[in-house]
C-alpha cells in the first residue's frame, strides 16, 4: 500500500492530537518528506479551528437575556436533578417559563 494512502486516514486524528505516540511519530516522519500530506495537515488544522470556533460561536439560550441566567439555569437544573425531578425548561421571550408537564421519578404529571 502506498505510504500516503496509509497516512491520510490518520491525519484528522494527528490534528486533533489523539493518535497514539507510535502513530504520531509515523505521521511526523512522513510529513517531513511528503509535501502533499504536510499540506493536508495544514488544511485540516485550518478546518478543525473553523469547526471549533464556528460551533463555539453558537449562542447559548441565556446569552440573549442576561449574563446571570445561565448560572440560574444551572442552579435550577441541578436542584431538580437532586430531587429526581425532570422538568421542561425553555427560554421564551426572555421569560423562564416552566413546562406544564413535569415528570417526577418517571411519572408524568400535567400541571395545567
Amino acid at each position, binding site marked *: 500500500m502506498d505510504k500516503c494512502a496509509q497516512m491520510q486516514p490518520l491525519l484528522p486524528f494527528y490534528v486533533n492530537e*489523539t*493518535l497514539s505516540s507510535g502513530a504520531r511519530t509515523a505521521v511526523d516522519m512522513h510529513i517531513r518528506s511528503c509535501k502533499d500530506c504536510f499540506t493536508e495537515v495544514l488544511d485540516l488544522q485550518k478546518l478543525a479551528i473553523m469547526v471549533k470556533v464556528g*460551533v463555539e*460561536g*453558537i449562542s*447559548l439560550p441565556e446569552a440573549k437575556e442576561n449574563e446571570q441566567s445561565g448560572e440560574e439555569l444551572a442552579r435550577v*437544573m441541578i436542584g431538580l436533578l437532586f430531587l429526581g425531578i425532570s422538568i*421542561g425548561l425553555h427560554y421564551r421571550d426572555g421569560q423562564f417559563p416552566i413546562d406544564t408537564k413535569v415528570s417526577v421519578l418517571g411519572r408524568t404529571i400535567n400541571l395545567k
Partner: protein
Amino acid sequence: MDEEKRISGAVVPQDEEAFAELFREYYPRIFRYCRANGLSEADAQEVVQVTMIAVWKGRGNFQRRTALSTWIFGIAHHKMVDLWRQHGRDAAVTTAAKRLLPNRAEKDFSEQLTITDRMMRALAELSEKHRQVILLAFYHGLSCREMSAILGCPMGTIKSRLYHAKEQLKELISNG
C-alpha cells in the same frame, strides 16, 4: 490532550457541588453539539437535561478505562438520537437547521456572515453521518477509538467516513 492523561484524571463527581461544576463545564458543549447537529434550542436544552440526569444516575456505572468526557458525550449523542426518533428526525432537523441558518436570500451578503453562520450553513449541507464525525473529531476532539465506541461502528468506517466528510466540508466552506 493525551488520551491516557484524560482517563486517569476522570472521576464522576459524587457530591452536589462537584456535579454542579461538571454541569457548568458540559452544558455549553452538549448544547452547542446539538445545535450544530440541527436541533432547536428547546430540543438541545432537553438533551442537556436528560443527559445530565443520566450521568448523575449512572455515575456508579462509569468505567474508569473510558475518558469521562467520552462517556458523557456518548450519553448526549444517544439522547440526541432518541429525540430525533421521537420527533421524526427529518422534520425536526431540517426545520431547526434552517432556523439556525441565515436566510438564503441574504446569500449576496455572504462576506458579512460570521464564521459560525458559514460553518452552520456548511454543516447543514452534510449528511447526518458526515456531520457527526466532523463534530466528534473537531469539536469534541475525540479519538478514532472513542468515536467508534460512541457511533457503534468499526474504526475503519470512522476513518473513511471522516475522510469523505472533511473533503466535503472543505469544499462547502471554500464555496460558502
